[in-house]
């Protein structure tokens, strides 16, 4: 058979199989079970624009596509994912270029036992020792390909063990082994079963193996003595009593000289604590963390966002308004200290500040600094020492106050004031600290049951000025306007513009049209877009920078 006839043959065979499967699926026969999935296609036809930084795209059309197919039958499931980057969209690593099956697995799971072979995602505790996860819109996927087992010997005890290699674009690299145990004391200790206080304890151990290689030391003629196995361990707790909650995790990592920490031999550690109180209409949450040399990758010589074994979350608030999220903060895994506080209060209906419908108040503040360090030496030494409570340079700070109020049965208004401090060193640049003031008004007008208009106005005043040498296109003072019209939840049109009116450059105009039917959504946009989280047409998603025509189709079935 030639290639074409073989393809046709395969297709008809598959179609035949499919009709049998679906026939018996309806009849719940031997092949029973269900097949579900999702498909996503994003494309951009780009135009070059040196002002906003979108580069020349010789191939004109860039596209990311993927399809997940999942088969489930009782305790058994299997899945595969096809991905195609022809060629990858702006902001995605060019090593993604290509297409093929990027992920496949088979899994069997009951309440007490689970095993997965193939690609899997997993998280131990808060992820400080291990978190295999993906974010399709950021081009991030550190799935582990190997074996993952879960076992519950008795109610309240969960044990996990895994081993495998991590995804690296179209390849797998490194070797990761991990163990995790979690004890829910209320389920284990009978008299505590019905207690109002719940306590969960956990611990994990993760190790990576990598063969030796030659990394020259600072003294000529010598090379570094590299550890082949590097381990990290953590302990954690989760305590809840009515409205009170206290969660904490501490992680420690052995000597792990990598290109990220410039091949120093200092141990890594991280501590995270979160305390909260809440009751109906009122809540407060405070978080603190300290991260010191805790970047943990399965390959020592790789930079970039891939191959991370662990995850040290940024505790700062995830803002979604354009100007408040203009300078997003990402954890500095080499070292940082942070504090974050959140407060929510609801003024009840028919009170002075609550009015007829009630008023919502939301406040947050955060401050992140570097560590207070003293240099010891370079490559091959401990690098530096750090004091536990000492702080270094300020990296990031923010403060925001949001008031949401229903004016009448048709109009809702959210007003926000924010202040953001941002040190360019966080993104690897030198320069002065940015101080930004942000004011936002977000108004929704429900004209009637089918027609809804939304207006958003934002202002950002900054002491930063555009400097061609640094080329930070976010610098300067900005204004933004957005109008969005929705016809039921099916159609929307939105027009927006961001304009640097002082000390900055750029004019980001965008028009988008979208159609949603059940779980299928099609969106077409034209204009210039910054990368970041965009919430229009009723959904939130991360978008890459673009200039020109973009289209996006997602569907689940």
């Amino acid at each position, binding site marked *: 058979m030639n290639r074409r006839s073989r393809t046709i043959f395969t297709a008809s065979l598959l179609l035949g199989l499919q009709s049998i499967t679906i026939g018996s699926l309806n009849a719940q026969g031997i092949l029973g079970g*269900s*097949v579900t999935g999702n498909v996503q296609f994003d494309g951009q036809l780009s135009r070059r624009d040196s002002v906003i930084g979108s580069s020349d795209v010789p191939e004109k059309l860039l596209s990311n596509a993927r399809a997940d197919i999942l088969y489930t039958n009782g305790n058994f499931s299997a899945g595969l994912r096809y991905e195609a980057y022809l060629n990858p969209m702006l902001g995605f690593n060019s090593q993604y270029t290509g297409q093929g099956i990027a992920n496949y697995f088979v899994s069997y799971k*009951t309440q007490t036992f689970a095993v997965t072979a193939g690609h899997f995602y997993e998280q131990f505790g*808060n992820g400080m020792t291990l978190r295999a996860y993906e974010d399709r819109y950021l081009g991030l996927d550190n799935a582990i390909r190997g074996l993952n087992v879960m076992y519950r010997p008795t109610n309240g005890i969960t044990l996990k063990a895994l081993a495998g290699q991590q995804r690296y674009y179209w390849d797998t690299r490194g070797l990761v082994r991990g163990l995790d145990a979690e004890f829910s004391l209320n389920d284990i200790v009978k008299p505590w079963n019905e207690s109002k206080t719940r306590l969960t304890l956990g611990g994990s151990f993760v190790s990576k193996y990598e063969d030796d290689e030659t990394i020259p030391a600072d003294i000529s003629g010598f090379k570094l003595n590299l550890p082949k196995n590097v381990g990290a361990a953590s302990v954690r707790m989760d305590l*809840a009593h009515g409205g009170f909650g206290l969660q904490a995790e501490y992680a420690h990592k052995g000597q792990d000289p990598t290109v990220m920490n410039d091949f120093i031999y200092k141990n890594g550690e991280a501590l995270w604590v979160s305390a909260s109180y809440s009751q109906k209409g009122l809540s407060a949450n405070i978080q603190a963390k300290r991260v010191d040399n805790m970047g943990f990758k399965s390959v020592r010589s790789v930079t970039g966002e891939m191959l991370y074994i662990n995850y040290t979350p940024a505790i700062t608030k995830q803002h979604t308004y354009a100007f408040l999220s203009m300078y997003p903060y990402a954890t500095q895994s080499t070292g940082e200290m942070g504090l974050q506080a959140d407060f929510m209060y609801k003024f009840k209906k028919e009170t002075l500040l609550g009015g007829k419908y009630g008023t919502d108040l939301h406040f947050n503040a955060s401050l992140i600094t570097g560590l207070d360090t003293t240099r010891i030496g370079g490559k091959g030494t401990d690098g530096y020492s750090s004091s536990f409570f000492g702080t270094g340079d300020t990296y990031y700070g923010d403060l925001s106050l949001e008031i949401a109020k229903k004016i009448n049965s048709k109009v809702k208004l959210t007003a926000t004031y924010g202040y953001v401090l941002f040190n360019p060193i966080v993104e690897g640049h030198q320069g002065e600290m940015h101080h930004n003031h942000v004011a936002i008004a977000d108004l*929704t007008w429900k004209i009637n049951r089918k027609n809804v208009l939304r207006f958003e106005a934002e202002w950002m005043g900054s002491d930063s000025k555009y400097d061609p040498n640094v080329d930070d296109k976010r610098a300067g003072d900005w204004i933004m306007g957005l109008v969005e019209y929705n016809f039921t939840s099916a159609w929307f049109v939105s027009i927006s513009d961001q304009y640097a009116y002082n000390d900055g450059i750029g004019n980001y105009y965008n028009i988008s049209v979208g159609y949603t039917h059940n*779980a299928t*959504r099609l969106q077409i946009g034209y204009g210039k877009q910054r990368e970041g989280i965009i919430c229009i047409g009723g959904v939130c998603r991360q978008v890459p920078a673009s200039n020109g025509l973009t289209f996006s189709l997602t569907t689940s079935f």
Partner: protein
Amino acid sequence: MKRFILTIAATLFFGLSFAQNAKLPENITIKTLDGKTVETSVINNDGKPIIVSFWATWCKPCNRELNAIKEVYEEWQEETGVKLVAISIDDARSASKVKPHVDGNGWEYEVYLDQNQDFKRAMNVVNVPHTFLINGKGEIVWQHTSYVDGSEEELFELVKKIANGEEI
């Protein structure tokens, strides 16, 4: 090989449009807001309809949807017996803020954490909000992604139909 894969994908895709309603998975691990590990089989409403809504603390449309339904939730429950189960996909960055967020907003929904996003993947959720409607037999009879002010009324029309045993 490429062509072969494309053929499989296309075949599955077109073939599947005839597939019947999938059931809500029962064996996915999720957590309650006070840290207890449970399976998705806890999502139950004694034969009455269930709304399963995937959301995140940082997602504005999700918050608008859950706040809008809050205003009418009691009426919905009285009329149809429906229950709303909110699944937070917040990761380690914001998962510990979910309980304060839920209480601060005064939501009376059953809320679970899906930090490892196992449930999200099993349900093929791509963007939030993503809302599913489950009938009395545990079958997923409808799903929708996105929320616009007022679309909770469309949702309730469907809930009423299901509560009456009608097809949608």
